């Protein structure tokens, strides 16, 4: 099995890049509200499904993608207004349960609108696998990896360098203080949902050629994306990407070298191990717990 490990790595990167993109979306909402948005997987699904159906209806791919992004953002903003914003003073757990309700709602809606079929988008730049040293990678995987890289750079810049980005972070750390320095905390939540949906839809569009999409695709993406975000360190954008890639690699190598039946379990065992030693994940925020 000498050269096979390279293919296991390629396999892991393909899955990992997908998880990374989803994890970035989790990070955005977490950084604004301190809550996990369990509807993030559904944002991805809405993006992928919209694009896939539009393409099937004859719309050109670039236009379909733009429309899909717009659709996901609109959906997310409406949901923020109707479901999240009215409950913004409630506790984190309540907020999380609301996002679970939202994810059920969106899944149910998607099932009505699009049915239960599985859809696929054409690959952006062909299907011909790229071979290197005996391993192969689909060109679309490079799109996904590139998308994740670009997203993390942009997000890092926005949150690390701009005052608006810092204001979004500040709101999740201390709402009262945020109000007192004049931050519109409602707008922050609103914007973060829009941003998370945008990123989610980008992810949905990028991964649909590889992973396909269906009304219930959000469940798995949500679970894996959450795990990736935790592994990398909740709140950290590079962490989200790192966590996603590591999770994917664990699965790929686990399936290759240990047991494909237990590959998910192997990944979770490793995550548990990491959390026991680094509760904040790889790149979790430096915490201050002094009294």
């Amino acid at each position, binding site marked *: 099995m000498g050269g096979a490990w390279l293919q296991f790595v390629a396999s892991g990167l393909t899955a990992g890049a997908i998880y990374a993109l989803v994890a970035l979306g989790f990070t955005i909402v977490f950084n604004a509200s301190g809550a996990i948005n369990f509807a993030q997987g559904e944002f991805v699904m809405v993006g992928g499904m919209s694009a896939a159906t539009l393409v099937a209806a004859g719309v050109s791919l670039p236009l379909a993608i733009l429309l899909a992004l717009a659709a996901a953002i609109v959906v997310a903003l409406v949901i923020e207004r109707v479901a999240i914003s009215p409950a913004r003073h409630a506790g984190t757990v309540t907020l999380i349960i609301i996002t679970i309700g939202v994810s059920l709602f969106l899944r149910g809606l998607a099932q009505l609108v699009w049915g239960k079929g599985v859809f696929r988008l054409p690959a952006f730049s062909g299907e011909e696998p790229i071979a290197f040293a005996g391993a192969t990678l*689909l060109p679309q995987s490079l799109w996904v990896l590139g998308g994740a890289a670009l997203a993390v750079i942009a997000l890092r810049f926005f949150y690390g360098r701009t005052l608006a980005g810092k204001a979004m972070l500040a709101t999740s750390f201390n709402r009262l203080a945020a109000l007192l320095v004049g931050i519109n905390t409602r707008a922050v939540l609103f914007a973060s949902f829009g941003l998370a949906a945008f990123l989610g839809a980008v992810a949905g569009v990028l991964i649909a050629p590889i*992973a396909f999409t269906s009304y219930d695709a959000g469940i798995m993406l949500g679970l894996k994306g959450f795990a990736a975000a935790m592994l990398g360190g909740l709140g950290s954008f590079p962490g989200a990407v790192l966590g996603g890639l590591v999770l994917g690699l664990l699965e790929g190598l686990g399936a290759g070298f240990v047991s494909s*039946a237990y590959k998910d379990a192997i990944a979770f065992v490793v995550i548990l191990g990491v959390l026991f030693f680094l509760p904040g994940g790889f790149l979790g925020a430096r915490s201050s717990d002094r009294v």
Partner: protein
Amino acid sequence: QEAIRIGAFLSVTGPAAFLGDPELKTLEMYVERINAEGGVLGRKLQLFSYDDAGDAEKARTFAKRLIEQDKVDVIVGGSTTGATMAAVPLAEQSGTPFISLAGAVPIVEPTRKWVFKTPHTDRMACEKIFADTQARKLTKVALISGSGGFDKSMRAECVKVAPKYGVDLVADETYGATDTDMTAQLTKIKASGAQAVLNAGFGQGPAIVTRNYRQVGLTAPLYQSHGVASREFIKLAGPAAEGVRLPAAALLVSDILPAGDPQKPVVSNYRKHYEDKFKSDVSTFGGHAYDGLMLALGAMKAAGSTDKAKVRDALEATRGYVGTGGVVNMNANDHMGLDLTAFRMLEVKDGKWSLAK
């Protein structure tokens, strides 16, 4: 006059939705059609259906609801083996004829008084495939399967019957229902020197397996299970699907069946009805529901009543029923009544199903 009550619990949502969804559509459509034609025994049909979402516990609750509250005359349903097995004791206890739409062998082996099933078993699928590999002189076969009930059950049956066909299983890999990349597993299979690969699975997994199969450069013949017998598979797998073989019922190739085939009228009709109404492709699973409903109604007609015991006896006495799944001949020891001839070996050619030579 009181309507005949048909009960159904199906996996309309959840991981097995592509079983339950066409099944429910089929039942609803035919109940409506038959009512429009005046019903059965001069009585209208009334359908009571619930979505068990693939959860056996829910299936049991709904089976109880059908029996206790809705007081149905017959149950057609149980998309998955787990759901079916959960409801079996209730049907047996209450004495309700129960026609399952799930595939696994244990549903009808050993035979239970009140339980019948319409689809071919997964063992038959394995046998059909291995018969084909035997004919092509391929002895080293690699197995890959999903982690769901359908997949694991078929995998286990294939392992059991392999020796009978001189098949040597050289690899045994697994993937999750929602996995997005199976190249790791396929790379291991590639290294195993398999002459053919059999994938037991349904849903989107097999499509990804098929695409990854070409990606890692595997060229050995790929067999899929009857679980992917729908046009959607070809759409998802794209050009990679070319040459894939699988055992399936006549339904999928209704248009290219020879004119003399006894199933031709039945499957053509069903297909036309379904595709006209729902504007989506038929799958064999909807056909199972069609067969289940028709068997039940046939038995009622034969019994001349909806008396449960009489209907059961009539079901067991079914002979020569021509359905979408094949020709059914039941008896006291066989509550399925199908044999290997019901399966056709299909091959994807030019993006379409065709009969394999």
